[in-house]
């Protein structure tokens, strides 16, 4: 009975309700950095996700332990439009608004995703890319609503915003976890949520959550603030720069000619 306060404490700490498989395996994880600064020369960032499996009993022989790491950028609504041929022209004819789709989403696993995660737990924890998109009630918006979410995933995957890396997490002696997640240069500001799942036989046995705070810094921060807080001053400053540059180039060329 001495375990009980400990379990209670764990339950309070754990951000998601523990699935309590009774295996007593938990994951402790960290990130190489919790903050990413976007400066003018920002060209992406590599985040190392590491962790260890804590257990009070020897691990069961089977099924094997697997790890899934997800990194999710801020959620935003997205309008997906579809072109159709009308009067010989390709025109946007249908559109579907998806309530919330992550601006960035990466999944890394120790094995093939279909082997390491069951459908029920995918549904519960929203792990895979299609599940990470919150598209509630779009069925009524278009005849073939699922083709719009498929298109969203396809387009974002081509842009490198949605990434699936199977076999990219290394798990040493069923204890040490490590993977690297490359954040692309086209990041938007916000909190990026990192989740590390332990699974056995496709069932999630524990999950740990961490956050990366992505923020604009320096000149980028200053310009964004000015643009939103003092738009008139920002607009006039833009014009002043344009006028100055136009005049300077004209003078420079005149001097060169004479």
């Amino acid at each position: 009975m001495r375990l009980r306060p400990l379990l209670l404490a764990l339950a309070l700490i754990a951000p998601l309700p523990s699935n309590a498989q009774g295996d007593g395996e938990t994951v402790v994880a960290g990130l190489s950095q919790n903050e990413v600064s976007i400066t003018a020369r920002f060209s992406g960032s590599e985040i190392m996700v590491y962790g260890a499996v804590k257990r009070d009993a020897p691990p069961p022989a089977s099924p094997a332990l697997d790890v899934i790491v997800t990194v999710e950028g801020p959620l935003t609504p997205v309008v997906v439009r579809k072109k159709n041929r009308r009067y010989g022209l390709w025109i946007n004819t249908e559109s579907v608004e998806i309530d919330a789709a992550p601006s960035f989403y990466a999944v890394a696993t120790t094995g093939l995703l279909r082997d390491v995660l069951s459908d029920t737990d995918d549904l519960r924890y929203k792990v895979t890319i299609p599940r990470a998109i919150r598209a509630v009630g779009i069925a009524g918006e278009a005849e073939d609503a699922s083709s719009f979410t498929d298109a969203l995933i396809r387009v974002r995957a081509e842009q490198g915003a949605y990434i699936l890396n199977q076999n990219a997490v290394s798990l040493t002696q069923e204890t040490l976890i490590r993977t690297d997640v490359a954040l692309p240069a086209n990041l938007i500001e916000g909190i990026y949520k990192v989740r590390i799942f332990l699974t056995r036989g496709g069932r999630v046995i524990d999950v740990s959550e961490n956050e990366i705070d992505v923020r604009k810094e320096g000149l980028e921060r200053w310009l964004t603030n000015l643009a939103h807080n003092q738009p008139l001053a920002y607009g006039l400053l833009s014009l002043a720069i344009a006028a100055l540059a136009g005049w300077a180039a004209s003078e420079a060329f005149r001097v060169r000619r004479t």
Partner: protein
Amino acid sequence: MQIYLPIAEVSVNAFVLLGLGGIVGFMSGMFGVGGGFLITPLLFFIGIPPPIAVATGANQVVASSISGVLAHLRRRTVDFRMGIVLTISGLVGSTIGIYVFSLLSSLGQVDLLIQLSYVVFLGFIGLLMLQESLRALNRSRKMAKAGATVPRRAHEHLLVHRLPLKMKFRTSGLYISVIPPIAVGAFVGFLSAVMGVGGGFIMVPAMIYLLGMPTKVVVGTSLFQIIFTSAYTTVAHATTSFSVDMALALLLIVGGVIGAQLGAQVALRLKAEQLRILLALLVLAVAAKIALELVLTPTEFYSLSVPRS
């Protein structure tokens, strides 16, 4: 060298932006067009979100037009009086245009409207200019062969001479009614607000063919007017949709102002007819590209857009 654009929130190669600015600036200095009809589609192409491309393109046009107009000022080829008349009526027209634009975007299909107006206006004006300038070129060639000088009628009587409220435009050597310039200015201002461009490609031919201005003054005067229309558009976008990206604008501007100077020098070495043929071909090329996009089966039928808060 990659650079992160603070408002567009995308990372792009700085040299690509300098190059784009340079090309568009070159056209601007050479033809007296702001280059908005080139820069906006080019920015879409490299992945800048459309509202930011439109607004920032306007900012770049201000810089290249100023750079270009200064070169013309020194050669005294700017008709200020005409420029001011066109500017004032242009601002009225673009205010109406901005209103119509927001009305249409609330109805949807504003993209189609923009694309169609590009195809129709660019195609129409391009063909008109090409036909006219080829004819002029042929005529001057024949004259050169015959060893005669080109006869020039000192007084062509156009509609602009018959309307009331006559005004003297000394630099252009015109004594015409003020009504056509006002109408042209307002119409161009309106169109440019709807299409998100400065409107030089409409203004230049309108000045030549409708107002009868000499080609020599047209370029400088058109640039003069474009400065004010696009400055107005820039501030309007910055204050209403926060979509001007200063970092993006700066890179385009640095390339653009240098390009504009080079363009103005090249223009000095070309004949007016040749210049007009080149501009006509450029305008037609852009129209054809947009028309093909509308007609050819796209590789991806779906497109994404994130509504800006």
